[in-house]
């Protein structure tokens, strides 16, 4: 019998790699005059050519936004919805469908998931990234699960940080402002010789909660102040044969008052840790990337009058392998495989746990049919197996195994891009994404089934199917760009509890269940441009109609509402001006009447939210080439304003002294 010699995969890469080069975003942006991305297909693309509805927020736009956090930046992006529940507490979604603990938007930092699967949400203040370390924020609207996996159903927000190898950026900032806000943040890049590049970033912020009255029930005793500490280290090594190895580790601790997925005001303490290793090779087989990372998420809530603080731990480990290559000049293919283990437990001090193991395979094909016409399609298959152990309870003397759950789902993205003229591009996009029930929902569903001795878990994932048409036009004479889009989305198998839980999950009829569907149809128009090299401007408008179709008797239908909570009309505008050392920016946000959910006993009530307009602004003066002084304000013309069903949002001011080199 012949014996085929084998080599470890990494060794093969060492042999075949010729010129490893990760994405040098800066050089690409300088060459093409526009940002580049891998978020649409997994292979490098220019932003205007991607077969997806994508917006890229650049480093300059981040600096000029005047925002002190990522949701504050995203609030100015067309088509993005931001709910501010409290100082430092936000939920972000695209095209409406926003709620407390918004589950439909997948958030990543350099491709690493920071979305937390336990309750299916993103704790924004606990993200281990400083604004000064960010190169660009990529916002993809619509399902993008075929590339990034489940939960990317409303969209993906991929935060790209400066690459220590290419981006020689060092920044620092000090902020002080209203609500006793004080912040220090910095990111420093070092080159150790020719082959080792390091970026260290860290930040600390404290402030106090809004002083506005709270209409929601309160769990525990509200904290007198919020605080956040974050540290991140990212190292890139150029290995022999020009392979690139990246190692990253991060830690954050964020303590804050927030609104829970169950619409209570609660006190939360988040602790996160992560480690990541990534190997990149520009080999004879294409762009090969091997990634492994683990995230640890510890969450303590102060609950009840006694301020009891049960802790919930969530660990996810992900191993990914992908290869993007061209078989001919007109055909680019990306193949990827992924394994993921995700586990939550113990919950609320008991000895139970819930976990899933997921195996995934995906393929992307980009076909340049004609010079002006391209087709991109991506397909992904996820196989997810849930297991759980249910702790003993008042009705159960011993721990028992929860009912298993197996989910096998396909996702796809497809897009036709036609550069009709030198100035016009038409895109036809269709996609389907899957939102898994989060781990706590599966746990609660298993607990509910256990109480009725039913071994079958009937919880299904929500799926979102989206079709849209986009028209982009570049008006060269006035240096302006326009995008007009229409979309239609259908969400099936909406899960009754959204991202939250019900009070008595083990009780009959209280388990999370699939309760129906929801349809959305919308129009998005956006313009932006530059005038005379000193002015920048942007205007956007979205009209959206949502129709929820829930079936009575299938489960609780009062816990999640998209139809009434999504405003039909949203308009945003921005104006920027630069003259010598002066910079000024102003942003307007308007949304029409909507509603918000508010907890009332075991149920939920819809409360009206009146139309509102908010204005954010920033005025900056560059003291030297390296130092800049800025004053920024959010919601300038309202001392307080109702924007959600939670506490009103307060006006904020802060002064920033920034160092940049």
């Amino acid at each position, binding site marked *: 019998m012949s014996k085929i010699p084998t080599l470890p995969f990494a060794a093969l890469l060492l042999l075949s790699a010729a010129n490893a080069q990760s994405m040098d975003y800066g050089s690409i942006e300088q060459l*093409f005059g526009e940002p580049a991305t891998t978020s649409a297909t997994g292979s490098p693309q220019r932003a205007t050519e991607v077969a997806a509805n994508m917006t890229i927020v650049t480093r300059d736009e981040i600096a000029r936004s005047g925002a002190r956090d990522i949701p504050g930046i995203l609030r100015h992006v067309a088509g993005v919805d931001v709910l501010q529940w409290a100082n430092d507490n936000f939920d972000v979604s695209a095209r409406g469908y926003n709620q407390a603990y918004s589950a439909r938007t997948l958030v990543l930092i350099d491709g690493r998931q920071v979305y937390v699967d336990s309750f299916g949400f993103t704790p924004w203040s606990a993200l281990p990234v400083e604004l000064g370390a960010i190169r660009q924020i990529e916002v993809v609207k619509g399902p993008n699960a075929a590339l990034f996996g489940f939960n990317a159903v409303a969209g993906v927000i991929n935060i790209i940080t400066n690459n220590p190898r290419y981006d020689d950026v060092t920044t620092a900032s000090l902020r002080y402002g209203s609500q006793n806000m004080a912040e220090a943040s910095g990111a420093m890049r070092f080159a150790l010789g020719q082959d080792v590049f390091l970026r260290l970033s860290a930040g600390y912020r404290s402030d106090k909660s809004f002083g506005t009255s709270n209409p929601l029930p309160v769990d525990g005793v509200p904290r007198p102040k919020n605080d956040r500490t974050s540290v991140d280290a990212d190292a890139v090594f150029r290995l022999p044969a020009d392979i690139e190895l990246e190692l990253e580790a991060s830690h954050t601790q964020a303590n804050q008052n927030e609104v829970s997925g169950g619409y209570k005001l609660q006190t939360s303490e988040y602790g996160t840790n992560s480690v990541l290793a990534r190997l990149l090779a520009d080999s004879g087989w294409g762009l090969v990337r091997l990634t492994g990372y683990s995230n640890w998420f510890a969450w303590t809530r102060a609950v009840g009058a006694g301020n009891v603080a049960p802790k919930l731990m969530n660990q996810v480990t992900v191993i990914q392998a992908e290869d993007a290559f061209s078989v001919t000049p007109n055909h680019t293919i990306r193949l990827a495989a992924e394994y993921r283990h995700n586990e939550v437990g113990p919950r609320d001090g008991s000895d139970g746990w819930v976990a899933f193991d997921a195996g995934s395979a995906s393929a992307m094909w980009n076909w340049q049919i004609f010079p002006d016409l391209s087709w991109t399609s991506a397909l992904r298959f996820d196989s997810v197996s849930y297991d759980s152990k249910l702790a003993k309870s008042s009705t159960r003397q011993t721990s028992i195994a929860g009912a298993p759950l197996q989910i096998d789902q396909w996702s796809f993205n497809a897009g036709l891009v036609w550069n009709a003229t030198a100035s016009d591009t038409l895109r036809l996009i269709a996609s389907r994404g899957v939102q898994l029930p989060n781990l706590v929902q599966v746990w609660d569903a298993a607990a509910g089934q256990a109480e009725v001795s039913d071994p079958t878990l009937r919880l299904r994932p929500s799926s979102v199917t989206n079709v849209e048409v986009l028209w982009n036009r570049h008006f060269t004479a006035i240096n302006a760009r326009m995008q007009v889009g229409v979309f239609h989305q259908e969400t099936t198998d909406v899960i009754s509890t959204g991202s939250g839980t019900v009070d008595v999950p083990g009780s009959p009829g209280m388990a999370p269940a699939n309760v129906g569907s929801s349809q959305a149809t919308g129009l998005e128009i956006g313009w932006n441009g530059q005038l005379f090299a000193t002015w920048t401007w942007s205007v956007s408008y979205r009209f959206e109609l949502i129709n929820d179709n829930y079936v009575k008797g299938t489960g609780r239908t009062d816990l999640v509402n998209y139809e009434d909570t999504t405003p039909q009309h949203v308009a945003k505008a921005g104006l920027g001006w630069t003259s010598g050392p002066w910079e000024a920016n102003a942003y307007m946000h308007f949304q029409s009447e909507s509603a918000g959910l508010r907890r009332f006993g075991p149920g939920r009530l819809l409360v009206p939210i009146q139309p509102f307009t908010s204005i954010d602004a920033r005025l900056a003066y560059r003291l030297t080439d390296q130092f800049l002084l800025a004053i920024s304000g959010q919601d300038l013309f309202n001392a307080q304003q109702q924007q959600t069903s939670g506490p009103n949002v307060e006006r904020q001011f802060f002064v920033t002294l920034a160092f940049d080199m």
Partner: protein
Amino acid sequence: MGEPFFFHRYAAGTGWYGLNVLTRPIVRESRSPEAGRTTEHKETTLPGGKPHATPRRGLALLSAVLVCVVLAPPLAAADVSPADLNAAVRSLGFLSSLQNRSSIVIGVVYNGADPASKAQAARAAAELVRLAGPRSATIAAFVVAAQDLGSQHYDAIYLMGLPAETSRAVSDFVRRQGVVSVSYDPACLEMQTCVLLVQARTSMSVVLDTALAKAAGAKFSTVFTMLVKRK
């Protein structure tokens, strides 16, 4: 090598939009690193420089511009622009052989039968040496007639608009010398003389002739090849 031009250390602060400083004729003393002789020439503003306008004047013009904007035709491919040259140099940054180089030598190839082409090449060479190369490498530029291409050594050549009768000589030179050729003129793809077409007009257009690149032994990063159109 062809006629020597000058070798100029890139000056900080005249980067991407550095051409804006060339709004008035300036006299620059230039020196050949090989011949050591100095030549004097006048530089003029190249096409593509941005006009400066005050907000008040601009507002008055805006309404007229808006009327015309929908009917505005795409810019025609004309002479080489500073943006074309800048993009060409940026493209070279993705070439494996030029990684970690502190200086790059570029031959600017013109039609020897056309004096206007020679003058245009001289202006392009003058602009090229002002640009920062990949990773701040310095650029030396030399003008050379297509008809005079022989055994010169360049890291890359930049092709001005060339007639079809020169295509054989240029193509042979690229293959024989293993040099990357870049041009702003779309005709170079048909003539198979350019490895890269780099044209910065309404939008950036970069086309890679994969066959010619292979023949010249040029290897670009895979990231770059996926970003550009390939022929």
